[in-house]
């Protein structure tokens, strides 16, 4: 889709609104599938997210789309229905593979059903949960949903309820089960050292070979999106750090940028530079941990200890300037919380050559190790088309050859001022995903090198009002987190609280990738493949 004027011709029934590089299309509920498939066929092959909405008297969904050819353009396809008792839309699962988990999420939180979707189980909450928490009229009294005493009945996870439109009462009918009666199913997690968090996978095995996996989320679902609806914007910032805690500063940056865009706040140049440097340090720390954890999954404890040791250097820099180690709590609306510590520049400059030396050591120690290569080579292939269809952004997508670096596509903060390459590989194998993280650390060091001496003088934060009220409207911001595209969508009604806030978790699609690449591999590879994708579960669960 080269130019947006064609859109109206393509979708005559849509109301189109355009703002900079964002375009919203509102279509009636009955046309939603038609619109989606027309858009898909005209090049919008990346479904970023599906956002559920409770507009008050109507319920709706927003499909956030982009095209891999032309990623600057963001398209919102909106649709709504006034039938609050039994809201339903056509499923787009056959158009985009990533729709699977997104639709289940919307169903879980809003009770919206997707016709023709083969799987309408709840995604995060237990199957026996009462109510739909993100609806505005949700009753949150603890008596209705007390702390459960017993384990979840896995039999309820077994059947796939499908909304059947031929059925007069619109009942959920179980057509199929996840696993066959004859299959041998093993539970993996939620309490398992190699799941990288509390992820529950049910794995169907044929001897040692995996046939199929069924992920079960929600063991760390804290309801951050709902909580945020009652919090002011500065308060929300603290919750964003705790989504994907390994790239906390980057998440927080996204929310700050979105709010600043809404307030049309001029952020000082100095703050932009500091934020960029902090983001890149965060990315390095996250990749080091990701690298160490992946190597540990392959049995190398030494690599983990090395990664953590070098990560501590970054933690020291954070501690001096931000006051916190893991939770930097540094970005605020309008800039950063405090100016950098006098030692900051020196410390970062010391760190860069040190890290370069260590990267060499990592390669010497592990990358060339025949045992490690034996484990990684030729396993876990993800093609470029599949990566786009699944929406696997970040290092995973780039290892498959999909150029999706938001820092390049839509430069924010001081990224436009630094020269760096977007790391791309074409293999799509586990080894590519392994090596691309170390390569990205190298690029991050280059960015740091260019920026650290050029931090402009001036204020570190713009003045903001004591009470921040965002003007009515929708605000969207995407940034490049350590695991992929992190997005925040804010719908404001002119209040000091958001009407709806939605975070796009880059990790969620990665679990979908796992589901796609795992069949046919061995049990031991499952753990390593999980490590190579490097997802963070609390980011998925929110």
């Amino acid at each position, binding site marked *: 889709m080269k130019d947006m004027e064609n859109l109206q011709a393509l979708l005559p029934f849509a109301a189109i609104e355009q703002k900079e590089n964002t375009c919203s299309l509102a279509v009636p509920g009955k046309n939603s599938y038609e619109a989606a498939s027309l858009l898909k066929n005209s090049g919008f092959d990346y479904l970023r997210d599906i956002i559920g909405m409770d507009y008050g008297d109507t319920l709706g969904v927003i499909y956030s789309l982009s095209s891999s050819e032309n990623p600057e353009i963001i398209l919102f396809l909106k649709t709504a229905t006034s039938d609050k008792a039994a809201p339903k839309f056509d499923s787009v699962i056959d158009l985009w593979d990533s729709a699977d988990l997104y639709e289940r999420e919307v169903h879980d939180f809003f009770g919206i059903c997707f016709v023709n979707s083969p799987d309408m189980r709840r995604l995060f909450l237990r199957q026996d949960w009462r109510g739909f928490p993100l609806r505005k009229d949700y009753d949150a009294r603890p008596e209705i949903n007390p702390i459960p005493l017993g384990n979840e009945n896995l039999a309820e996870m077994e059947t796939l309820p499908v909304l059947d439109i031929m059925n007069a009462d619109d009942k959920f009918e179980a057509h199929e089960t996840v696993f066959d009666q004859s299959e041998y199913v093993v539970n993996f997690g939620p309490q398992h050292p190699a799941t990288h*968090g509390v992820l529950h996978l049910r794995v169907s095995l044929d001897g040692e070979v995996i046939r199929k996996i069924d992920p079960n989320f929600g*063991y*760390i679902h*804290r309801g951050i999106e709902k909580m945020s609806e009652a919090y002011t914007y500065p308060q929300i910032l603290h919750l964003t750090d705790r989504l994907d805690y390994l790239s906390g500063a980057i998440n927080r940056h996204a929310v700050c940028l979105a709010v600043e865009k809404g307030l049309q706040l001029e952020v000082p140049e100095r703050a932009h530079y500091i934020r960029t440097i902090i983001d890149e340090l965060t990315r390095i720390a996250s990749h080091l941990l990701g690298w160490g954890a992946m190597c540990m999954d392959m049995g190398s404890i030494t690599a983990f200890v090395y990664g953590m040791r070098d990560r501590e250097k970054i933690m020291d820099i954070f501690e001096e300037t931000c006051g916190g*180690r893991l939770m930097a709590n540094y970005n605020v609306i309008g800039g950063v919380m405090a100016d950098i510590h006098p030692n900051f520049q020196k410390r970062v400059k010391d760190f860069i050559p040190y890290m370069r030396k260590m990267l060499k050591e990592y390669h010497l120690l592990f990358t060339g190790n025949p045992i490690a290569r034996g484990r990684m080579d030729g396993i876990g292939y993800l093609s470029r088309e599949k990566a786009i269809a699944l929406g696997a952004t970040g290092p995973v997508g780039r290892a498959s050859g999909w150029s999706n670096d938001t820092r390049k596509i839509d430069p924010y903060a001081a990224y436009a001022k630094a020269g760096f390459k977007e790391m791309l590989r074409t293999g799509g194998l586990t080894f590519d995903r392994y090596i691309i993280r170390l390569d990205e650390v190298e690029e991050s060091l280059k960015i740091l090198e260019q920026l650290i001496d050029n931090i402009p003088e001036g204020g570190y934060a713009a003045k903001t009002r004591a009470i921040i009220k965002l003007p009515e409207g929708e605000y969207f911001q995407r940034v490049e987190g350590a695991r992929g595209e992190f997005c925040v969508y804010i719908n404001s009604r002119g209040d000091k609280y958001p009407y709806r806030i939605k975070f796009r978790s880059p990790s969620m699609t990665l679990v979908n990738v796992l589901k796609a690449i795992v069949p046919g591999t061995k049990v031991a590879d499952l753990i390593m493949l999980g490590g190579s994708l490097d997802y963070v579960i609390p980011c998925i669960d929110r």
Partner: protein
Amino acid sequence: MEVKNIRIRNMKTGDFKENEYLEEYLKELRANGVNIAVAKLDDLINWGRSNSVWPLTFATSCCGIEFMSLGAARYDFARFGWEVTRNSPRQADVIFCCGTIVHKMAPVLKRLYDQMAEPKYVMAFGACAIGGGPFKSSYHTVMGVDQIIPVDVYIPGCPPRPDAMIYGMMQLARKIKMQEFFSLSEEPGLMDFKRIKAKAFEAIKALKDMNPLKKDEKGGKR
């Protein structure tokens, strides 16, 4: 044993802050007629117990990363003999609750705790494990692990620094040193042979009553 006689490494009682708590715990034990560790054999056993506490690797969210830092090179809890992290609760002595516990996770945590062998201890790491932390107003968060299982040591912070975690671990070591290993105490969490025996009898009886055929019908797939 008096509180003032307990040393952890080279730290004496005066170096610790929360001494009143231990004094009170001691009084409480005495008042309930529980023997306090006095004998030399107890001392020896407790010396061993407090220096080789095996934690369960259990982390749900952000605090878990600081727990990993604690295990890595700089903070290195191997210095205290705590590094043998176990992946099975049946082999663990202490459960480190790192991170938020939510409704869906609560039964899992309870089950893990129940699977641990006595004597067992619980440490609540971070604001979330203590009382819900930043997610106090959420519909899906459990407001502290002590709603589900008893807690021995609370370590505040969001997340607590690894140093704070070490301090908390030393506090637990002091508690362990005070208990008499061979006593028949009534305090839950301590070795309680009477209770365990009664439970075992109950379980055996229940097994006898059970109809194996009936169970098969209900069982089904796991």
